[in-house]
């Protein structure tokens, strides 16, 4: 089965790291259009801004503005297809959730908020 339906099988699919921890969903697909050669998938993308931008230009502007106010310029997390280890109901890539950018908010909430509330350790 080397035929894959990008929209049905990959777009909006759950992405996990090596230890099956959740990284996010495939919010976008970067397609490289080449002259005289079929387009190739340059990267898969995880990012709240990418997801909200799919609703339309207005949402794209709001999401970018909101994200940039929060963590400087918002840059989605991109990874090439070659880093995909397993692909089925979920997509597993060789990344470590502890350092992966899509989990910045998760780590910030954990360290700044959850750890400070009793019972949150």
């Amino acid at each position, binding site marked *: 089965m080397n035929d894959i339906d990008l929209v049905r099988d990959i*777009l909006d699919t759950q992405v996990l790291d090596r230890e099956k921890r959740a990284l996010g969903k495939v919010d976008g697909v970067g397609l490289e259009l080449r002259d005289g050669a079929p387009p190739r998938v340059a990267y898969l993308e995880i990012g709240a801004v990418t997801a909200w931008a*799919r609703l339309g230009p207005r949402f794209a502007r709001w999401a970018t503005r909101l994200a940039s106010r929060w963590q400087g310029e918002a840059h989605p997390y991109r990874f090439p297809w070659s880093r995909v280890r397993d692909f089925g109901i979920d997509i597993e890539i060789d990344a470590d959730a502890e350092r992966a950018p899509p989990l910045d908010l998760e780590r910030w909430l*954990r360290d700044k908020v959850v750890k400070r*509330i009793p019972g949150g350790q």
Partner: protein
Amino acid sequence: MKKILGIALGVVTSIGGFLDVGSIATSAQAGAAFGYSLLWAVLLGTICVIFLVEMSGRFSIVSGHTITAAVRKRFGFAGFILPFAAALLVNLLVLASEIGGVCVALQLLTGIGFQVWAIPVAMALWLLLWLATFDVVEDGTALLGLVTLCFVVAVFKLGAQPGELAAGLVPSLPAQERAHYLFLAVSVIGATIAPYLFLFYSSGAIEDKWDKSWITANRVIATSGMSFGALIAMAVMVVAALTLKPQGIRVEEYEQAALMLVPALGGWGFYLFIASLAIACFGAALELSLATAYAAAQAFGWNWGENLKPRAAARFSMTYTVFIALSALIVLSGLNPMKLTLFSMAITAVILPLTVMPFLVLMNDRRYMGSHVNSRFSNVVVTLIVVLSAILAIIAIPLEIIGSR
């Protein structure tokens, strides 16, 4: 053997967990105002919820996805965000009604106003989730929920006539007060078909790692659990019809509903009503808070799980924390708990198509369900009930607002 235990637990927890502030408030008001004649609404809602719960279990077993994740995958981010936002908003109103229900039970018991209890109840709810011992807590509250069987005991003690009960199961339209009748009908249906019920059930099936051997067990749990649960909701209506209606007492406040068990069970009746209201609402609030955090995690791709320590799922635990806080604020604002409950149930009926139809499309998609797709009959039954209740609700809510102001 483990499966039989699993089925037994499944059935018992769905009986205990079925009743919530919505079913108690709507059934009590319907029974006091129209006697048995709205029993058909509970029946209709129950038929639909049995189909939906069975389907959601089968869906997770066969496809390995939860419903929320699959709706996003199937319809894309743009397609999934509208029903998701609508369900989130309704969940907030329903959670506020559930917390309000617990606060009102404490008000009945102590005479201290329900708003005073909003913060303590919300804190207790949040703490149980925060200390992540949820599966023990969920089963515990559901088992305690069996106290609601006192309504069934009262029905036998009051000697309800089966013949008259059966008459109430046939849809009818009374001569006068039709607007209020229809409003109560959709509120009862909205209370019975609570979307979070089947979304939560599908997440549970994934967490308990049900495999294909569970398909029949799933059908047993869905059918018997929901049917027994519905019997209790009907019992509430019958008791109200037998004790409040004859005395001309209508249920506009919980103070009036609290009287209904006294004729059958004496002094115990008053305290059993309070216990039923408090436990049923608390259990439902727990489940609803977790279901909402599940939905957000499954939608945006975070870690999720019943017993995840907050440290391991910060966004997940922050979601239910913020959600509980917002609901507590609604209760604090002093909105009349009974009115808030009824309108939340009616609004649930309005947005039913938005939450149920995408799921129905998934149930007919061979890529997810293979040979276990839906039968044409279940598609038509669920579609008719859901679409009809939404249309009725869209008509009934404005009429109720004109009528009651």
